[in-house]
C-alpha cells in the first residue's frame, strides 16, 4: 500500500503581471481628478447678466 502524501501547495514567485498589479496598489498616487469647483472665466458673463436681470428693490408706492 502506498504511503505517499500530498505535499502542501506552495506558491511560486509572482510573475510580471502579478508584480505590476501589486506595485500599482502599493504606489497608489493621489486621485488624478476631482469634482471640486474650479474657476471658470466663461461664467463671468452669465453672472453679470443675472445681476442685471435680477429684480430691483421694490419702491414704496405713494399714496394717491
Amino acid at each position, binding site marked *: 500500500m502506498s504511503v505517499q502524501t500530498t505535499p*502542501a*501547495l*506552495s*506558491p*511560486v*514567485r*509572482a510573475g510580471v*503581471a*502579478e*508584480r*505590476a*498589479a*501589486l*506595485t*500599482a*496598489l*502599493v*504606489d*497608489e*498616487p*493621489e*486621485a488624478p481628478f*476631482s*469634482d*471640486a469647483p474650479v474657476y471658470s472665466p466663461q461664467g463671468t458673463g452669465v453672472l453679470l447678466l443675472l445681476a442685471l436681470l435680477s429684480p430691483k428693490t421694490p419702491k414704496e408706492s405713494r399714496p394717491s
Partner: protein
Amino acid sequence: MSNAALGADYAQAVERLAGRVLGALRGTQVPLPAVSDADRPADTTALAAVRVMGPDLFAPALFCRQPLPQPDRDTLDTALRVFPPRPGDSVEARWRDRTTAALLARGAAGADPAGPYAGGEPYADEDSERAALAEAAGIAGIVEDAEDTELTWQERSQRMARLAPLALPEVDGPYQQRACLHVRALSRGATRSLMRRDHPTAARLVRWLALAQSRGASPALDVPTVLDHLRLWGAPSARTALDLAIARRLLAATEGGPR
C-alpha cells in the same frame, strides 16, 4: 486574466483584508483573531493583499499590545517570499517593506520599545529565514533618498500619503520624525486633498498629522474636526476607514484615553 482584471481582483482582496483589520482594531477579542486568509496559503491574490497592507496588518497588535497572531505571521512570511522586495521598487515601497519586515522580526509586537530602527542586532533572536527576509527588506530600505530635503509641500505630502502605513504607534524612524518636522507641509497637503475631495489621500495625511500630534507637534489643522468630516463624507472604502480609525486611536492615546 487581463492586467486590469488582475488589478481589480487584488484591489477587492485588499478591501476585504482592510475590513477585517478594521474589525480586529475595533473589536475587544483577546487574543487577536487572525485576519489573513491563512486557510488559503497558495492563493496569490490573498498574499498580494497581505503585501499591500504591509505594516497596517500590525495595527491591532500594536494598539492592543498583543502579538500578531501566528497564522498572520505565517501568511506574511509566505507573502514576502512570493512577492519579495526588490531594489528597483519605489522608495515608498522599500520603506513599507522594511517596516513590515522589522515588525515581523520584532516578535511579540510592542516588545521592543526602542523601535525597529534602534540599531544593534534586532533579528538576532529570530530564526534564520525571518532574519533573511528582514535583512533583504533592510537592504532595500537603506538607500536614503537624498532629494528628500528639496521636496515641495505638495511632493512631500504625496510621498507621505503613500507612506501612511508607517504611521503607527511604537514604530519609529526617519519618516515618523519628518512627519513631526514638516507638520505644516502635511497640513497644507491635507487641506489641498480635502479641497480636491481626494478623501483617501486626505485620510492618509491626517493619519500622519495625528501621529505628529501624539508626539507633541502642533498641526495647522484641527485634526479631530477633519477626522469627523472625513468619516461623514469620505470613508466609502475599508482602507480609508482603517486610516481614519488608526488616526483616531493615535489621537486618543495623546489625550490619555484607551488605545
